[in-house]
C-alpha cells in the first residue's frame, strides 16, 4: 500500500483558493449598475449612507458585495465588523449593542432573514440599527427578500429596514454566468475557453455558488496534475 503511494506521488498544492477575498471590481455588474456605482462610491467613503439593504436570490452575489465593502473600507483604515448571521447563531453570538463598541464604523450583517420572526433577535437588530445610525455610522444588511416581504414581528424594525438605500441584487444572466466563471478562472491564472465554460454550464449545476466551487475544484486538480482544463479534464474532475 505504502509502496503504491510512493509510486504514484500526489502533488500537494497550496490552498490558493483562500487567497480569493471578494473584491468589488470582480463583481459582474449585469443588471446591477446603480447598485455597483453606489457601493463603489460608498466603499471609497465618497458618499455616506447610514443604512443599506441588499437583497437577492441565493447566488446573486449579495455576500460578495457585502464582503467587498467590508474589505475595501477595512483597507482604508476604517474599523469594520462582518457578521454572518447563520454562523453566529450557532455560536450563540448576539447582536447586542455591547458587542459593538464605538470603534466600528461599518457593521455588515449577512443573511438577516435567519433571525426574522424571532422577536428577541429582531429587537437586537432593531437596537443595533438605532445604535449605529445614531452614531452616524453605517449598517449594511443582506437578506433573501425585500424588506416589505420580511415577516417581521417587530414593525418598528420593518419600517426601519424599509428606509435607507434598498437594492435588489439581480442574478446573473446566462451569458454573464459564463463570464463569471471565466473571470474566476482568470483569477487563478487559468484559461477557461468558451467551449469548456459552456460545457460546465450545460452539464453541471448552474447555481453560481456551485459553478465557483467547480472552478475551485478544477483549479486544484489542474495544479496537481499540471494539465490545462479541457472538456475531458472537466469530465474527470468536476464535482
Amino acid at each position, binding site marked *: 500500500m505504502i509502496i503504491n503511494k510512493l509510486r504514484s506521488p500526489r502533488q500537494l498544492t497550496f490552498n490558493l483558493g483562500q487567497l480569493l477575498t471578494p473584491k468589488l471590481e470582480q463583481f459582474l455588474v449585469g443588471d446591477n449598475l446603480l447598485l455597483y456605482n453606489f457601493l463603489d462610491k460608498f466603499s471609497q467613503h465618497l458618499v455616506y449612507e447610514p443604512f443599506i439593504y441588499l437583497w437577492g436570490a441565493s447566488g446573486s452575489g449579495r455576500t460578495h458585495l457585502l464582503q467587498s465593502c467590508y474589505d475595501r473600507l477595512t483597507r482604508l483604515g476604517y*474599523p469594520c465588523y462582518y457578521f454572518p448571521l447563520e454562523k453566529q447563531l450557532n455560536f450563540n453570538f448576539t447582536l447586542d449593542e455591547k458587542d459593538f463598541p464605538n470603534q466600528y464604523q461599518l457593521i455588515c450583517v449577512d443573511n438577516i432573514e435567519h433571525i426574522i420572526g424571532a422577536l428577541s433577535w429582531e429587537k437586537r437588530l432593531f*437596537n443595533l440599527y438605532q445604535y449605529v445610525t445614531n452614531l452616524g455610522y453605517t449598517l449594511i444588511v443582506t437578506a433573501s427578500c425585500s424588506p416589505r416581504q420580511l415577516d417581521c414581528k417587530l414593525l418598528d424594525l420593518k419600517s426601519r429596514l*424599509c*428606509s435607507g*438605500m434598498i437594492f435588489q441584487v439581480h442574478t446573473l444572466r446566462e451569458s454573464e454566468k459564463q463570464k463569471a466563471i471565466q473571470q474566476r478562472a482568470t483569477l487563478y491564472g487559468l484559461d477557461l475557453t468558451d467551449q469548456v465554460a459552456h460545457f460546465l454550464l450545460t452539464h*453541471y449545476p448552474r447555481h453560481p455558488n456551485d459553478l465557483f466551487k467547480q472552478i475551485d475544484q478544477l483549479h486544484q486538480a489542474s495544479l496537481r496534475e499540471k494539465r490545462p482544463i479541457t472538456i475531458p479534464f472537466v469530465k474527470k474532475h468536476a464535482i
Partner: protein
Amino acid sequence: MSTINQAIWSHCLDYLNDDDRIDDEAFVTWIQPLGAKLTDNCLLLLAPNSVVFEKIKNNFFEHLLEAVQHVVGENNPPPEVRLQVETSSPMVQQDSLQHEESKRELPWTASLRKYHTRLNAQLTFENFVAGQSSQLAYAAAEQVAENPDRVYNPLVIYGDVGLGKTHLMQAAGNMILKRNPDAFILYLHSERFVANMVKALQNNKMEEFKNFYRSADVILVDDIQFFSGKERSQEEFFHTFNALLDSQRQVILTADRYPKELIGLEERLKSRFAWGLTVGVEPPELETRVAILMNKAKQSNFVLSEEVAFFIAQRIHSNVRELEGALKRVLANAHFTGQAITLGFAKEALKDLLALQAKLVNVENIQQAVARYYKISLVDLLSKKRTRSFALPRQIAMTLAKELTNKSLPEIGYLFGKRDHSTVLHACRKIKKRLSEDFSLKEDYTYLLKILST
C-alpha cells in the same frame, strides 16, 4: 454634576494606554503630550501645538470621550471635554494665526453631555414637513420646545411606525438645546433604559442609574410600548417620571398607539401619561408626501418636479421612511448617471422598489406568466401535448427558466412535467435560433423577460 477629581486624567491615560485601538507609538506621540486642566465641570485638554491638536481632533477625540465616560462611570452625569491648543506654547506664539484661532471658541469642541444625549442634530422642525395628519403634533412639539414644562408635560406623541414621531421629539430636543446649550437633554429608546437598568442592577449601581436619569433637564423616551411586560423597568421609569415632573423637567414620549391602549403597561403609568397632552400622527396624505419629497430633494440640492414627486408619492403611502428611501434611490441614480430626473427616469430607477409584490423569479412564476400570456392553462403548458400552441410557450418558458433562474437543466426538465434535460437544451437552442429570425416571437420573449425580471 459631580466634581471631577484630580486623578481623572491619569486614569484616562491608563485607560487609553490599555486601549488596543491605539498603538503605543500613537499613544506616546499624540496622547501623552496633552496637558489637562481640571475644573468643576470641564476637562480642558491642551495640545502643545496645532499638529497634535489636529491629530487628536481627527483621530482620537472619540476615544478620549470614551475614556472620560469610562472613568466617570456610565451612569454619572458626564462632564464637558474641550480640546484646544495651549496658548502658552512657544510654537503657538510664533504663529500668530494659530494663536488667534486658539483664542476663539473652537466650533467643534464637543461636550460629552451632548455626546451622551444621542440627539440627532439633523432632526429639526425646519426639515419636518407637517401636513394635516401631523399638524397638531408638530404644533404641540414646537410649543413644548419653546416653553419646556410650561405647556404640556408630558407630551406623548403616538402613531404608526415611520410617520415622524421620533423626528418631532428630537426636533423639540434640538430646539431646546439650541436655546439653552447647557441643558442636559437626554434622548433614549425605552429598550436602552431597560438595558441600562439591568446593567445597573447587575453592577449594584442603581443609585447612580437613578441619579443619572433624574439629573436630566429634558428626557425624551422613544417607543414606550417596549416597556410592555417589564414590570421592574416600569416601576423604575414610573419613579423617574414622577421625579422629573415634580422637579418641573420636560418629558416627551412616543408610542405606537394611544397610551391607554398599550398592552402590558401598568395603569398608573398610563394614567400619568394622560396628565399632559397626547397627540397622534397619522399617515401623511398625498399632498404632504409630495411636499416631503420635494423638500428632501431640495435639501440634497436636487430639483424634483411635481410630476415625479406625485409619481413616487402615489406609489408609496405607508410611511415616510419608505418614501425617503425611494427618493434617495432616484437621487443616487441621477447623481451617478448625471441625467435629469424625469418621470421615465424615476420609473426606471424605482422599478424593482415599486414592484409591490416583488418576488424572486422562480420556475413556477415563469410558468404562470407564460401560460397567462399565451392564454393557455398551466396544466397544458406542463402536459405532454406537442401541438404548436402548447409546445412554443413551453419552449419559451424553458428558455426563460434557463435564463432567469439558477436551476440546472435536469431540474428545469423535471419541473416541466418530468422531462429530460436534453429536451430543455433542445428547446433553448430552438428558441435562440428563432429569436434571430422571427420578430414577433422576439417581441413576445422580450416582453416576458421584462415583466419577469422587473
